[in-house]
């Protein structure tokens, strides 16, 4: 019974972990291109989820198409945000840009509440069965779908940064916008692209979480939840984000196990990622896979 | 590799201010330094030259504590400092400048130089915050006086209050030197102090270095690519190549060495180094 519980927790941890990993990748993408930590990532999830929900409930569009439109919309939305809000800030201090993302988060949070109300709204049933048995654990179909989609997205990202010229350009831009420009890289394009992709992928995560928990503005909290994951893996490593996501997913579940069986703290699951985070950072100051800063004089 | 000591080691090891003994430094597979030894006597002006990537900067880094050699020792002023933290080394009298400018770019020139006096100042968090009451003000003013001497010496009065980051390259180099001098070091390490300067500025810089050495009595280790300068002002020269010591000795003798001429100067007459041959140009 106990080992069964442990096994189920591990499976659940891995499934949720991939979801964290995907959201983590969105962070990393923007970070890699602009060194900006996007505090509005959670709102991207939220907007994506609302848009998809709206398409499905108000227009009765089939899920697949609704989902697709929402993702494409978010791609355009991410680019638009970049063009309208972030473009004037190219070349300005990074910390100011980070603060702007905080402003965006406040703005969109309120806008979403205005447009869609303050109550949580359920997605219409999408899958014929709402749960699937995985090694004894009942898993929501939406989560399974997300795991599949996440794996595909992860592979895509890996390819992008390894082989495409645009991936290289993004890294150059992150290193120094001035240098990137001197090489003929359009910093604007790079940013637009990274924000677009990031927003689109966030939308995928938003829809999944929305399908499971209902869409509500509280969903945006997911944005902050993946911070430890991203840092554990290394801020600039796509692979690291995935690993970090899995680790956090597992830690939460195992934390809950240890807590319920032995420790009886109550909320170990919530804070254990942070304890582990500090320990790992003390050993590896750039996370598991982050590139160290080059310290030369 | 034979280390040709052109002049017999005039300075006995005991009297040497700095002894570098069999230092090796590795970065992964790359051997940046291999078994390098040399001594610098008190009051000496010692130059290190060598091709790009030979390990000159790495050597300075070993002396100033930025790198810890994988083998060998660094003995400074009679004490083994091989594993001493960089900030402690500053306190015992090793100052330096950097190849790629490393000023505190948002601070004023004055403050940059005052940081150099960090280890000489006593005021702390509390007395600093109380300023007028804890004696901090008095101390700051005293040291300000000292700093002004350095500023006068290096002729940077006019940019005292300027933000270091907005200065032109040459001035920044001078401010860096001022910062290192403010440390009141026994040994000062200069990494390419003349790079990026025109002739006139080089002349000024050479003047400062010679004065530091002769009038302020500081021992100096200098890395420099301008052979004219190296030749004229240094007492002894060491050549590094591929992390190994090639030769060491008096400037004229070192530059006459065939190895050096080949590996470093490209077989040209060192005195005419900045006269390009038509052959080189049309190659």
């Amino acid at each position, binding site marked *: 019974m*106990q080992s069964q519980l442990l096994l189920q927790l591990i499976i659940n941890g891995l499934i949720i972990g991939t979801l964290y990993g995907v959201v983590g990748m969105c962070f990393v993408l923007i970070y890699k291109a602009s060194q900006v930590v996007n505090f509005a990532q959670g709102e991207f999830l939220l907007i994506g989820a609302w848009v998809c929900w709206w398409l499905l409930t108000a227009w009765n569009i089939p899920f697949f198409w609704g989902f697709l439109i929402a993702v494409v919309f978010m791609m355009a939305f991410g680019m638009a945000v970049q063009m309208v809000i972030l473009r004037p800030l190219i070349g300005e201090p990074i910390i100011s840009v980070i603060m702007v993302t905080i402003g965006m988060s406040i703005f969109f949070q309120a806008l979403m509440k205005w447009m869609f109300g303050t109550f949580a709204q*359920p997605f219409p049933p999408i899958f014929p069965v709402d749960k699937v048995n995985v090694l004894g654990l009942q898993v929501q179909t939406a989560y399974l779908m997300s795991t599949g989609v996440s794996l595909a997205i992860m592979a895509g990202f890996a390819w992008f940064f390894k082989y495409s010229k645009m991936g290289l350009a993004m890294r150059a831009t992150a290193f120094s916008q001035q240098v990137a420009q001197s090489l003929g890289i359009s910093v604007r394009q790079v940013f637009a692209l990274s924000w677009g992709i990031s927003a689109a992928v966030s939308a995928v995560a938003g829809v999944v979480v929305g399908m499971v928990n209902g869409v509500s503005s509280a969903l945006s909290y997911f944005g902050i*939840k993946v911070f430890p994951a991203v840092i554990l893996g290394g801020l600039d490593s796509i692979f690291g984000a995935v690993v970090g996501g899995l680790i956090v997913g597992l830690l939460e579940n195992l934390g809950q196990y240890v807590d319920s069986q032995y420790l009886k703290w109550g909320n170990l699951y919530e804070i254990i990622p942070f304890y582990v985070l500090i320990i790992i950072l003390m050993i590896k100051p750039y996370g598991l896979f982050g590139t160290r800063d080059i310290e030369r004089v | 590799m034979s280390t040709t000591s052109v002049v017999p080691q005039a300075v006995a090891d005991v009297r040497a201010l700095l002894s570098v003994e069999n230092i090796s430094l590795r970065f992964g597979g790359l051997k940046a330094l291999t078994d390098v030894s040399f001594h610098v006597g008190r009051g000496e002006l010692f130059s290190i030259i060598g091709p790009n990537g030979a390990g000159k900067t790495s050597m300075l880094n070993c002396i100033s504590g930025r790198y810890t050699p994988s083998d060998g020792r660094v003995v400074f002023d009679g004490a083994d400092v091989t594993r001493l933290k960089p900030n402690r080394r500053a306190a015992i009298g090793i100052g330096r400048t950097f190849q790629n400018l490393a000023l505190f770019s948002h601070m004023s020139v004055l403050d940059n130089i005052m940081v150099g006096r960090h280890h000489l100042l006593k005021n702390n968090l509390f007395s600093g915050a109380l300023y007028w009451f804890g004696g901090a003000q008095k101390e700051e003013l005293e040291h300000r006086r000292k700093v002004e001497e350095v500023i006068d010496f290096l002729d940077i009065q006019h940019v005292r209050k300027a933000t270091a980051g907005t200065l032109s390259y040459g001035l920044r180099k001078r401010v860096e030197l001022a910062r290192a001098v403010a440390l009141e070091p026994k040994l000062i390490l200069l990494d390419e102090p003349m790079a990026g300067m025109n002739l006139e500025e080089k002349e000024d810089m050479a003047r400062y270095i010679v004065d530091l050495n002769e009038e302020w009595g500081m021992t100096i280790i200098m890395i420099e690519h301008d052979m004219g300068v190296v030749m004229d002002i240094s007492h002894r020269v060491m050549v590094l190549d591929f992390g190994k010591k090639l030769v060491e000795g008096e400037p004229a003798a070192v530059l006459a060495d065939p190895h050096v001429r080949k590996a470093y100067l490209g077989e040209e007459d060192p005195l005419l180094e900045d006269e390009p041959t038509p052959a080189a140009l049309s190659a």
Partner: protein
Amino acid sequence: QTINIGHLADYSGGTSDVGQPYGQGTQDTIAFIDANGGVDGKTINSDFNEYGYQVPRALAAFKKWVGTDKVVAIQGWGTADTEALVGMVTKEQIPYFSASYSASLTDPKGKVNEKSERAAPFNFFYGPSYSDAARAMVQWAADDWKAKGKPGKPKWVHMGANHPYPNSPKAAEEAYAKELGFEVLDPITFALTPGDYTPQCLTLKQSGANYAYLGNTAGSNISVLKACKTAGVDVQFLGNVWGMDENAMKAAGEAANGVVFPVRTATTWAGDAPGLATARAISKMSDPSGTTYRPVHYLTAICTALYMKEAMEWADKNGGVTGVKIRDGMYQKKDWVPKGMEGVCKPSTWTATDHRPTTSVDLYRAVVTGPTDASVTELIKTGTIKLEKVATVDLPRKTELQGW
């Protein structure tokens, strides 16, 4: 002549899902009072302040009200701000009607028993305290266990975030559960935000609990209910007043089916109490069509505002509408229902020594019988979601149980 009051509401912050209907209820009621003669001819001038559930902003609003507007009463909202303002409200002698039902606000003198922490002489709320509501559910669970004729000791577990609001009734509820012969398990913690709570559900399942109290607000409770349904947990869930309502039922869908929770009013919007006529009239203030379904929090807000209004009326007749007089007005009647709200507001009594308005708690069961993707109004109309009254638990009004 006008009476100035302040109104603090959360439409945009962390509790906006329940803050919105509650705040709307208050706004509509004030508008209705003013449209219908005011307080003996004096209109109530309410300064609406949306504070996004942020204490500093609540503080600023309060200072403005006492400094500039000279308000005589305040309609407040959350626990954090209410608690932060207790001292100031007492000092300024301004009755403060909030939506935080923390039992610590029910002791006007302070230290009625050793568990009661501090005096809150100017704090009022309408409805059972969080602690009493939880005690009532313990009571109901004990009866339920007996009625079902199950053998052995039932197991009780408190679930919720480790935060002031979910924790508020924890001690009371667990003490009472022990008293009634429950085995009290280690509490299970889950955050106040939606997320994946499968691990909590698996723990819950493994612990073999029979009754689980959900202390959080709706958003995260929904996540737990859904996760537990998927994990196949067989537990009777009991919700906090703010943890379940019609909107949450819709969002949780069938996972919410069967959850028992307290309702502060004697009826829901779908009922047929005579007082609902007034309530509908009030509702028209912001919804002229009169078709919108109003959740339980809306009705609660109406009652709260109307008690204040009647206390003002008494004050007006007895020396003027001042903070102190309004407070005294609250003490004038016993088992009192505001005029026109018969069958909606539960008879309540406030005394100078006891600010527990009632210790009688109505428990309802959430019944969800199908997919919930229509609007709440429709879902209620079609009967897909229903609130079924399961019991009224009358707790003894003991001083030992006051203030914690």
